[in-house]
C-alpha cells in the first residue's frame, strides 16, 4: 500500500518470469483476458445447452436421451451460466478490467493483487459449477431462479448434489466479484489521470462503474439467500421451507417462508439485469459516437440516466413476483416504479438515435452490432412495458412471451454489444485487424437469426405456451402451427449457433494472420487509443501518464485538422495546467 496509482512516482514492478507475466499476472490487461476467455468458454457450454433445449422443443421425441429431467437441468444451467458466469464476468471482469485503467489513464487497478485473486476465485467458482454436471443426480433442474421449496425437495432433478454445487459456486462467485468490483469502483474514484474529471470519462467507464457499484449492493442479497438455502438443504433448517407434503410424506420442515427467498433473489435479480445492461449501454454509446463521427448527444443526460437507472433498479424487484401471491398493493407500487424506469431508458434511446442523426455513419462491423443492439433493445423494452403491468403480466407470466422478452432485452442485446465491442477493441488488444467479410457474414446471420428465434416466441407466449416445459403434448389450446413455429425456431437457433464458429475462427485467424492494426484504426478520441504501444504494455503509458484536456467525444470539430481530437491533445491556447 503506497501512493495512488495515478501518481507517476510509484515505481512499478515488472514481472520477469513467464508465470508472473501470463499466469499469476497482476496486470489488469492479462487478468481481463483471463476473465474473458474463461467466461466465453463457460458461455459456450450454455450455448450448447440452449441448442439441446431447442432440439428437444423443435423435434420432441426424436432425441430419446433428452429426458424431462435433463431438459430442466439444461434450462437451469443455461440461464444461470448466461446471466452470471458469462455476461457479468465478461462485461465487468473482462471489459471492466481492460478498459477502466486505459480509459481513465491509470497504470493499473488500485489493488492489483486483489484484482488477480478475483480472477482465480472466479475460476474456482466456474470449476465448482462445472463439477455440478458430474455429481450424482446431475446439476440442479430448479430453473435459474432456484426457487425453494422445490429446488431442494426430493423429485427435483439435482436436488441431492447439483443444488449444493450451484449454491456454493454462486457464493464463491460473489466473493470473486466483490474483490474485482471494489477495484473497479475505487480505481474510477481515486486513480484518474490529470485532467480526467468524472464528467470527461467515456460512457463505457460510466456504465461499468455504476454497474460495479450495483453489483456490490445487489450480490449480497443473493449471497445471503444462497447461504440460507444451503443451511436448509445441508443442515435441515427451515428458513425457506414450510411444512409440506413431499412424495406423499410430511416433511420435517416447518414455518419457513418461500416468498422470502423470492424477495432476496429478485433484490439481486433485477439489478443484475442492469448490471449487464449498463456496461452495454456505455459501450454502445462509444461505438455509435466513434463510428458516426459525432459527439454523443446529451452526454450529461446520458450519465445521469445511467445513475438514475442504477438507483431505480433497486426498487422494482417485485415485478418478477406478481403471481407469487404477495400483497396486491405491492404490485401497484412495483408496477409504478417499473414504468418510471422507462423514462431514463427512453432518454438513452433517443440520445443514441440523435447521435446517429445526420452523422457520418460508417457501417463497419462494430457499428452494425451497435445498430442491431438498438433494434433488439427497443424491441425488448417495448415488450417489457407489457410485462411491467400486473394485469397484463398475470396471464403472460411463465409463458414463452417472457422468454422472448428477456432474451431480447438482456440476453441478446448485451451479447450483440459484446460482439461489437470485441470487433471494436480487438485491434488495440491484439494489434491486428479482423477479416471484414467473415465478420459481416457473422453479423448478418446472428442479427437476422436472433429475430427468427425470438420473434415467434412472443407469439407462442400469447397462445399460452408455457416456459420450462419439456414437451407440449396434446393440448387443445395450442394449435398445430405452434409446433411448426417451434421447429422453425430450432432450425434458426442451430444456424445461429453454427455462425458463432465464424466468429471464433476469425478471432484466432486474425490473432496470427490478421493485417497489422495501427494504434488507432478507427480514429477514436478516447484515451485507450492513445497509448504509446499497441498492444499496451505493462504500466500502459510508458514513462509519463497522459494529461487529459477534453472529453472523449470531440469528433468532426469544425476547423480542426482531423475529424477527431484525442483527449490528451491540449487546446491550442492552453498550456499544460
Amino acid at each position: 500500500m503506497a501512493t495512488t496509482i495515478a501518481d507517476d512516482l510509484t515505481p512499478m514492478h515488472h514481472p520477469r518470469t513467464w508465470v508472473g507475466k501470463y499466469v499469476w499476472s497482476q496486470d489488469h490487461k492479462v487478468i481481463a483476458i483471463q476473465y474473458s476467455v474463461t467466461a466465453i468458454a463457460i458461455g459456450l457450454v450454455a450455448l450448447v445447452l440452449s441448442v439441446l433445449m431447442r432440439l428437444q422443443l423443435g423435434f420432441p421425441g426424436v432425441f430419446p436421451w433428452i429426458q424431462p429431467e435433463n431438459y430442466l437441468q439444461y434450462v437451469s444451467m443455461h440461464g444461470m451460466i448466461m446471466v452470471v458466469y458469462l455476461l457479468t464476468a465478461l462485461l465487468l471482469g473482462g471489459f471492466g478490467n481492460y478498459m477502466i485503467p486505459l480509459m481513465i489513464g491509470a497504470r493499473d487497478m488500485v489493488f492489483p493483487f486483489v484484482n488477480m485473486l478475483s480472477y482465480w476465485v472466479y475460476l474456482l467458482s466456474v470449476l465448482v459449477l462445472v463439477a455440478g454436471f458430474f455429481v450424482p443426480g446431475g446439476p440442479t433442474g430448479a430453473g435459474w431462479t432456484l426457487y425453494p421449496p422445490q429446488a431442494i425437495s426430493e423429485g427435483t432433478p439435482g436436488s441431492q448434489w447439483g443444488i449444493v454445487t450451484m449454491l456454493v459456486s454462486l457464493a464463491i462467485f460473489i466473493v470473486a466479484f466483490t474483490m474485482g468490483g471494489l477495484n473497479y469502483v475505487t480505481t474510477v474514484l481515486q486513480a484518474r489521470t490529470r485532467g480526467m474529471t468524472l464528467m470527461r470519462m467515456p460512457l463505457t467507464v460510466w456504465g461499468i462503474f455504476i454497474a460495479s457499484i450495483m453489483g456490490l449492493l445487489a450480490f449480497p442479497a443473493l449471497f445471503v439467500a444462497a447461504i440460507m438455502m444451503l443451511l436448509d438443504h445441508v443442515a435441515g433448517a427451515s428458513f425457506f421451507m414450510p411444512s409440506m407434503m413431499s412424495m406423499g410424506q410430511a416433511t420435517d420442515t416447518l414455518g419457513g417462508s418461500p416468498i422470502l427467498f423470492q424477495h432476496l433473489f429478485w433484490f439481486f435479480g433485477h439489478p443484475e439485469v442492469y448490471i449487464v445492461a449498463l456496461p452495454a449501454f456505455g459501450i454502445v454509446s462509444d461505438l455509435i459516437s466513434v463510428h458516426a463521427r459525432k459527439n454523443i448527444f446529451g452526454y450529461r443526460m446520458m450519465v445521469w440516466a445511467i445513475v438514475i437507472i442504477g438507483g431505480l433498479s433497486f426498487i422494482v424487484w417485485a415485478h418478477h413476483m406478481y403471481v407469487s401471491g404477495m400483497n396486491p398493493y405491492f404490485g401497484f407500487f412495483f408496477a409504478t416504479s417499473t414504468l418510471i424506469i422507462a423514462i431514463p431508458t427512453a432518454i438513452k434511446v433517443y440520445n443514441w438515435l440523435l447521435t446517429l442523426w445526420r452523422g457520418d455513419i460508417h457501417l463497419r462491423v462494430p457499428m452494425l452490432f451497435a445498430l442491431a443492439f438498438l433494434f433488439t433493445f427497443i424491441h425488448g423494452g417495448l415488450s417489457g412495458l407489457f410485462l411491467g403491468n400486473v394485469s397484463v403480466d398475470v396471464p403472460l407470466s411463465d409463458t414463452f412471451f417472457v422468454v422472448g422478452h428477456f432474451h431480447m432485452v438482456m440476453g441478446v442485446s448485451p451479447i450483440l454489444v459484446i460482439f461489437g465491442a470485441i470487433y471494436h477493441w480487438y485491434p488495440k488488444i491484439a494489434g491486428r485487424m479482423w477479416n471484414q467479410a467473415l465478420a459481416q457474414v457473422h453479423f448478418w446471420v446472428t442479427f437476422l437469426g436472433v429475430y427468427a428465434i425470438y420473434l415467434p416466441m412472443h407469439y407462442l407466449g400469447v397462445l399460452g405456451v408455457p416456459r420450462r416445459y419439456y414437451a407440449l403434448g396434446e393440448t387443445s389450446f395450442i394449435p398445430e402451427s405452434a409446433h411448426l413455429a417451434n421447429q422453425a425456431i430450432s432450425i434458426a437457433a442451430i444456424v445461429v449457433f453454427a455462425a458463432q464458429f465464424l466468429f471464433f475462427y476469425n478471432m484466432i485467424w486474425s490473432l496470427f494472420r490478421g493485417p497489422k492494426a495501427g494504434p488507432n484504426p478507427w480514429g477514436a478520441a478516447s484515451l485507450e487509443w492513445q497509448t504509446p504501444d499497441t498492444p499496451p504494455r505493462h504500466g500502459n503509458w510508458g514513462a509519463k501518464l497522459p494529461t487529459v484536456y477534453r472529453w472523449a467525444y470531440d469528433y468532426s470539430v469544425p476547423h480542426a485538422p482531423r475529424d477527431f481530437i484525442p483527449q490528451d491533445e491540449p487546446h491550442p491556447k492552453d498550456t499544460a495546467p
Partner: protein
Amino acid sequence: MSQVTKERNETEENAQGWRAIVADWSTDREVFRHTHWGKAMMWIFLLSDTFIFSSFLISYMTMRASATMAWPDTAEVFALTIGGQSIPLILIAIMTFVLISSSGTMALAVNYGYRRNRKVTAALMFATALLGAAFVGMQAFEWTKLIEEGVRPWSNPMGAPQFGASFFMITGFHGLHVTCGVIMLLIVATLVLRGHYDRAGDYSAVEIAGLYWHFVDLVWVFIFAFFYLW
C-alpha cells in the same frame, strides 16, 4: 480551440448550486481528496458488507414475524445462573461491553499511529485483538450452552426452529468477521512493531484496519438490539 469544449469548461467553472456540487465532486484524479485509496476501498467494502448483514437481519425479522411456532423468550434463553441467581442476558452484556471497549483501544491505536508512535500503536492493537479474541471465546461458550440445551439448526425444544437456525447463522457470520478482524489486527500490529510503516512513511493500514474493526462492532450493536433485546 473547440467551441463546444470551451463552453463546457466555462459552464463547469461558473457552475452554481447542484451543478457546483457535481463539479466539485467530479474534479480530476481523486473524488475523495487526499484519501488513501485503500481507505476508500475499505469504505466501499463496508457498504457492501452492510447489505449482507442487512439482508441477514431483515430475513431474520420477517422469519420471526411469520414463524408458526412461538419464538423463545431471549431474556430467559440467554440467562446465566450465577451464585444461584438467574441473571438475564448477562453474558451478552459482558460480550457487548468487551467488544465496545475494543473499539476504544482501536481508536487510540489509530490516534497513536498518526503520531508515529510505533510501540504504543502496536500495543493497543494487540490489546484490541485480545479483546476481540475474548469476544469470540465467549461466543463459543454461548454456542456450546445452547447446543447442550438441545438447540439445533433443524430443531429447537423451546419453540420455533428458526430461532436456533438464525441464531447460529447470524452470530456465526458475525463471529467469522470478528475472527478475520483479529487475524488482520495481529498482522498489521506485527508490521507496525517491525517498523514497516515507518519505512513506508504511511500508517494508513492502521486506520483501515480500524475502520473494519469499528464496523464489526457497530454490526454487533444491531444484532444485539434485534436478536437479543427484541
